[in-house]
Each structure stands twice: as structure tokens, then as C-alpha cells.
């Protein structure tokens, strides 16, 4: 018996006993006390009638004195019945109401419901610990792709928003500390459908604990953790955590792509962003020095990349101790003490001739102020703003809109840890090859990026493309597996042939081919496919569906390979093959 029923039974024992007692006494009395029927004979109520009478009296319905008018003795007893049963009912109802409002009872009910929800999941699902800003973004992007998720969060307030949000899938949630193993167990970490655990609570400590627990309770599942400190990260790795996301490093990585080549950044943005959203605009950055406001953890990471690219940089930070430490390291970049929110400091840093400014402090007001002041002085400067809190989203985007000129290239990039982590985690779980692709792309030169982005924009149209990967094996590409087994030669161009129309090609680009751990960037169409190849594609959602025909239906495969339409039904196929054989003999 579950806890809820148990609590109800235990609490309701007294009122139910009281009700039974009162009912039995009053019913017995009604049966014993003699009445008089309409002919004046003495008449005794049957137990059934007495129960009927007491029932409609106790519930205050009162059908009346039936079947015969009561005698005064009966009426006296009826009085006793009225008061005793009504009071007993009132007591019972009061108890129930009290029970319903009891916090512990409500918790038990919620936990019970959560357990049932988890039990009822029959699809693969992901367990998300921490429903802060990052957690929300992760849940959103996973449910958007119709993956099931389960949420564990400490703070009730954050969870309440979950119920109101519009999500594509139902998300069971529980209030609890994710660092406690029994909470994770309750949330189905040992469920056979649990595919992965995503630890994105605000505390590194908790994330570490979640990673350990997951690896101990369910060693096969993948674990992704958010971490902000190096030492915790190492600790996590030592437990075999599969994927660690450090917002500052990720941020810096993206920045390095941007200064390496704006097109490369665009590729990253198009491929990792949520599909079907509007494409971001191309970016243009002037040549010149950079100004870096805020030399904290974030600023440090960015500075490394600026130095690697040999871009002259001016650092602005209000902390004098940082300046001393910086000067001791004999870095040759100038360091100005100040917040950068005022004209004086910015002018001193040379904002007039700077190519870009990075507002990277951990205070959103200061960042916005820095940007506004900088743009006032130099309207052509490229601005990178670090957004710390999701709530300030409106501000940053309204600022973005104000400064946007129609058809001009973007001059402002807003980087939000929440968004970046969510993208990282989504690409890690849903399209793992994308990471490989981006790593390879980073080693290419600017021209390569420009060519690639123009190929992508040709197939994408107005909105961000889908990215998916296929693996040539029996499970996910049965037709190709069969064809290869029979020794037929398959090329990539066959995969991107439209199985519905012999003339046209599918609007997609093969991004990456992985064979025996060797990676090939943008493979050519005429490469032969081999068993266990993994190929990453990028295209619209329809293209993905069409390609599935080729991968799963033999007739479609034959069609795209032979440009002929082999019939599907058995008889027709026999006939067709026979005819082909004849033809071949004839040709020989």
C-alpha cells in the first residue's frame, strides 16, 4: 500500500469509527422504537428503512417523515439522530480538509504522483538536475525535439514556472536536493529508459555529487556536468563523467571562433541553434585593437585567445590588485583601473579607434552601461556583451534592436551562459558528431569558412537547418546494410538523391564522415559508403524525413540507385526481376 493511502487511513480512523458508532446507534434506535402506520397499527421500521432515514437525515437532505408520520417517541430519537450524525459528519469533513491542507500529506501525494509518472515513461528520457536558467533552456531544447525529460530542483519557486510554461512533452518534476542519492533514485536514475543525467545546478559541488551518484547507480548512462572551477572539473573527469561544460571556457571557445573567422562563428551559430528559428545575420568586424572590460575568470579566458591571435588589447578592470598581478606577469598589454562605464576611461583606452569592445563584467548594469557609452563614442565598434542573468534578456535584446540598422551586418553579439551551455548539451546528446565537425572546422582557414557558409545558406533558406547523423548499420540503415552485404557499391550521392523524384537532389550537405576513427570534413558525393560509417548531415526537416525512405525502404533505395521503380509487392517483383534477367541475357 502506498504512503498516501496509509496516511489517509491512519488519520481518518477516528472519524470513521465515530461515524460508524453514531450510525449504528441511531439506526438501532430507529428500529427499536415502535411507530404507528396510517391505519393506526404498531409498526417497526426495518433496518433498511432506518438506514435510509438516518442517511438522508445525516447528510441534511431530509426527504421527510416517510413512509408514515413519526410518533413523538420516534421524533425524540430523530432529534438525537440529527445532532449526533450531523456533528459526526462535520468532524469527519473537518479532518479531511485538515488532511488535504497538511504540507506533509501534499508532499506525499506529489511524490506518489511523481513515482507513477516515472514508472509510466516508456521512451528514452533524460534526467535534468537543477531547473535554473540553464536547466530551463536544456529542458526546452530537449522537449522541442520530443525527448522526454525529468526535472529535479531544490527551489519550489523555479518549479512552479515549469507547469505554466508551454512544453512539447509532459515533464515530471520533483522538489528535492539532487545531491541526495535517494532523490535521484526516485527520479528514475536506475530506470532502464534513462539515457543520461544532466547536472546543471548552480553549485559545482552538487554537480560533482550528482556525477558520482550517477556513475555508481547506473554506470552505463551518459553524464553531462556544468562546472565553473578547474579542480572540480578534474575531480569529475576522474569519475568518468562523459561531458563537462564550463561556461567560461565554452564562451571563450566561441569567441576564438569569432576572431578566427566571423563565418566560422556563423557556422557554429547556425548548426547549434534551435532548428526552425530565424537565421542570424552575417558579421563584420573591423581590423584594430580590442578593449576588454572586466578581467575576471571570463576576461582571462578571452584575453588568452586575443593574445594567441596577436590582437592588441587594452584591459579595463576596477580591481587594483588584479592590475598588480597582471603587471607582475610582464604582459605587455596596457591595464587601466576603472569600470569602463564612463567616457573618460573608455577614451583613455582608445575606444575611438578600437575594432571591438567586450563588456565582460559580472554585473549586467555595468555591462549595458559600458556598451551604451562605447557606442555613443564610436558607433562602428563591434560589441560583445556578456549577459549574466536571463531576466535581463529583454534589456539586451531591446538594446540590440535599437542599434540595429536594417540590412547592415550585425555589430553586436550577446553571449549568455545559459544559452551556450544548453547548446553544448543538446549537441552532445542529440548530435554528438557536431562537436567533431566544429573542432575540425576550427583548423581550417577563413576562406574555407566562407565557402562552407555559402553552401549552408543555399540549403537553409530563411531558418536554421536541422543537423542529424546516420550510422550505416542494421539498426538505423537496414537497406544500405543489406545492399552492402550483397556487395553493391553505394555512394554518398545516392543518399542525397530525392527518393520521390528521380531528377532532383535533396537540399542537404554532408558535413562529416567518420570511418574507423578517421574524420573527413565535407566528404565528396562520390565517396563509397562502407559499413559502420557515420555521416553527419545538415538540411531542412523534410529532407531528413525523405532520406529516411532511402535508409529504410528497399524500393526507395533501388529507385535512387538505379533510377528505376522496382515494384514492392511479391508477385510483381518476381515478374520484374525475371524481365530484368531476360534483358541482361539479351544484352550479353
Amino acid at each position, binding site marked *: 500500500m502506498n504512503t498516501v493511502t496509509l496516511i489517509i487511513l491512519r488519520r481518518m480512523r477516528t472519524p470513521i469509527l465515530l461515524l460508524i458508532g453514531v450510525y449504528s446507534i441511531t439506526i438501532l434506535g430507529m428500529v427499536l422504537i415502535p411507530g404507528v402506520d396510517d391505519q393506526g397499527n404498531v409498526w417497526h421500521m426495518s433496518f433498511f428503512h432506518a438506514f435510509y432515514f438516518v442517511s438522508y437525515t445525516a447528510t441534511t437532505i431530509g426527504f421527510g417523515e416517510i413512509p408514515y408520520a413519526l410518533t413523538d417517541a420516534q421524533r425524540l430519537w430523530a432529534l438525537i439522530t440529527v445532532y449526533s450524525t450531523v456533528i459526526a459528519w462535520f468532524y469527519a469533513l473537518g479532518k479531511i480538509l485538515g488532511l488535504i491542507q497538511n504540507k506533509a500529506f501534499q508532499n506525499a501525494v506529489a511524490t506518489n504522483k511523481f513515482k507513477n509518472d516515472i514508472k*509510466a515513461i516508456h521512451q528514452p528520457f533524460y534526467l535534468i538536475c537543477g531547473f535554473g536558467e540553464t536547466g530551463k533552456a536544456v529542458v526546452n531544447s530537449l522537449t522541442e525535439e520530443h525527448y522526454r525529460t525529468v526535472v529535479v530542483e531544490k527551489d519550489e519557486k523555479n518549479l512552479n514556472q515549469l507547469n505554466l510554461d508551454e512544453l512539447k512533452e509532459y515533464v515530471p518534476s520533483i522538489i528535492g536536493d539532487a545531491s541526495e542519492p535517494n532523490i535521484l533514485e526516485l527520479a528514475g536514475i536506475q530506470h532502464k529508459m534513462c539515457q543520461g543525467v544532466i547536472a546543471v545546478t548552480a553549485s559545482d559541488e552538487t554537480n560533482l555529487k550528482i556525477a558520482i551518484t550517477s556513475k555508481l547507480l547506473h554506470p552505463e548512462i551518459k553524464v553531462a556536468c556544468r562546472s565553473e572551477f578547474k579542480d572540480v572539473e578534474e575531480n569529475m573527469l576522474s569519475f568518468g563523467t562523459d561531458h563537462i561544460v564550463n561556461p567560461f571556457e565554452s564562451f571563450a571557445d566561441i569567441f576564438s571562433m569569432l576572431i578566427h573567422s566571423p563565418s566560422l562563428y556563423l557556422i557554429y551559430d547556425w548548426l547549434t541553434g534551435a532548428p526552425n528559428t530565424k537565421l542570424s545575420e552575417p558579421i563584420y568586424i573591423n581590423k584594430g585593437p580590442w578593449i576588454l572590460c572586466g578581467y575576471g575568470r571570463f576576461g582571462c579566458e578571452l584575453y588568452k585567445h586575443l593574445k594567441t591571435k596577436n590582437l592588441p588589447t587594452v584591459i579595463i578592470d576596477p580591481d587594483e590588485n588584479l592590475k598588480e598581478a597582471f603587471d607582475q606577469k610582464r604582459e605587455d598589454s596596457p591595464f587601466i583601473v576603472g569600470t569602463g562605464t564612463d567616457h573618460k576611461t573608455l577614451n583613455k583606452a582608445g575606444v575611438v579607434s578600437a575594432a571591438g569592445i567586450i563588456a565582460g563584467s559580472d554585473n549586467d548594469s555595468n555591462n549595458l552601461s559600458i556598451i551604451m557609452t562605447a557606442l555613443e563614442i564610436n558607433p562602428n565598434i563591434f560589441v560583445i556583451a556578456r549577459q549574466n542573468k536571463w531576466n535581463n534578456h529583454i534589456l539586451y535584446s531591446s538594446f540590440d534592436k535599437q542599434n540595429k540598422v536594417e540590412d547592415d551586418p550585425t555589430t553586436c553579439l550577446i553571449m549568455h551562459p545559459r544559452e551556450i551551455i544548453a547548446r553544448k548539451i543538446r549537441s552532445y546528446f542529440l548530435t554528438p558528431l557536431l562537436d567533431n565537425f566544429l573542432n575540425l572546422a576550427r583548423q581550417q582557414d577563413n576562406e574555407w569558412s566562407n565557402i562552407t557558409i555559402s553552401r549552408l545558406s543555399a540549403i537553409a533558406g530563411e531558418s536554421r537547418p536541422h543537423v542529424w547523423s546516420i550510422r550505416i548499420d542494421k539498426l538505423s540503415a537496414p537497406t544500405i546494410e543489406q545492399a552492402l552485404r550483397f556487395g553493391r557499391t553505394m555512394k554518398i550521392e545516392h543518399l542525397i538523391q530525392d527518393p520521390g523524384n528521380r531528377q532532383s537532389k535533396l537540399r542537404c550537405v554532408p558535413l562529416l564522415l567518420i570511418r574507423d576513427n578517421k574524420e573527413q570534413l565535407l566528404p565528396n558525393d562520390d565517396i563509397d559508403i562502407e559499413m559502420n560509417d557515420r555521416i553527419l548531415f545538415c538540411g531542412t526537416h523534410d529532407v531528413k524525413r525523405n532520406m529516411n525512405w532511402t535508409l529504410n525502404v528497399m524500393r526507395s533505395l533501388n529507385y535512387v540507385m538505379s533510377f528505376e521503380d522496382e515494384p514492392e509487392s511479391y508477385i510483381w517483383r518476381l515478374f520484374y526481376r525475371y524481365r530484368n534477367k531476360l534483358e541482361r541475357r539479351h544484352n550479353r
Partner: protein
Amino acid sequence: MNLEKVVFSFFMILALTLNFGFFYGDVVDPDHHNIYELFAVIVINLIATVLKFGDRSQMGAMLLATSLVAVVQLISASVVWTFAVHIQQIGLTPTVMATIVSLSGGAFLANIISVILLMIEAAMLRR
């Protein structure tokens, strides 16, 4: 499989089929139109309506609207019936019967729309 979806579809389709059962038959012949069936249709339609509460999508709004239409039509039919039998006491004359049946026919149409919408949704959702 989603149990909720099964229950939801079950009641919507049951509403349609029961409605058809009541509607089917000669327009003016009371023998062809069972009052118990009408009762069942009303109850099932009410349940289907309540099940649609709280869905935010455009589709949800339309589904709720069709169900409300069906309920309005059916309740009108039952009111006409009550009026004819209990209040005017003229019994189920051809005119009355035609009204009742045509009202239930309207509800039938609404239920058809409901089910079509449900089918569209199912077709769109499959991946």
C-alpha cells in the same frame, strides 16, 4: 503509448459514434431514436468537453469549440424533448421529432469535425 491520449480519443470517438446511432433512422419516427442513446450521447459529450479543458494550442481551442457546439446542440435537443413531452404534453409529433433529430444531426457534424481535427493532429505529430 500515452494512456491520456487513448482515453481522450476514446471519448471523442465514442461521442461521435453514439451520436450517429441516435441520429440514424427515419427523421420523424420516434421508434428510430432511443432516448437512452440521447442521454448517453449527452453524458459522453460532456466528458469529452471537460477533457479538452486547459490545452493551450490553437488546435485545443478548436477542439473545445466543436465540443461546446455539440453539447449546445444536444442539450437543445433534450430541452425540446422535455418541452414536448412534459410541458406541452403534445408527445413526439413529427415536427418535434424532426427538430430533435436535426439538432442531434448538427451535434453529429460537430463531432465529425472534432474527430477530423484529432486525426489531423495525430498525422502531424508523427515523426
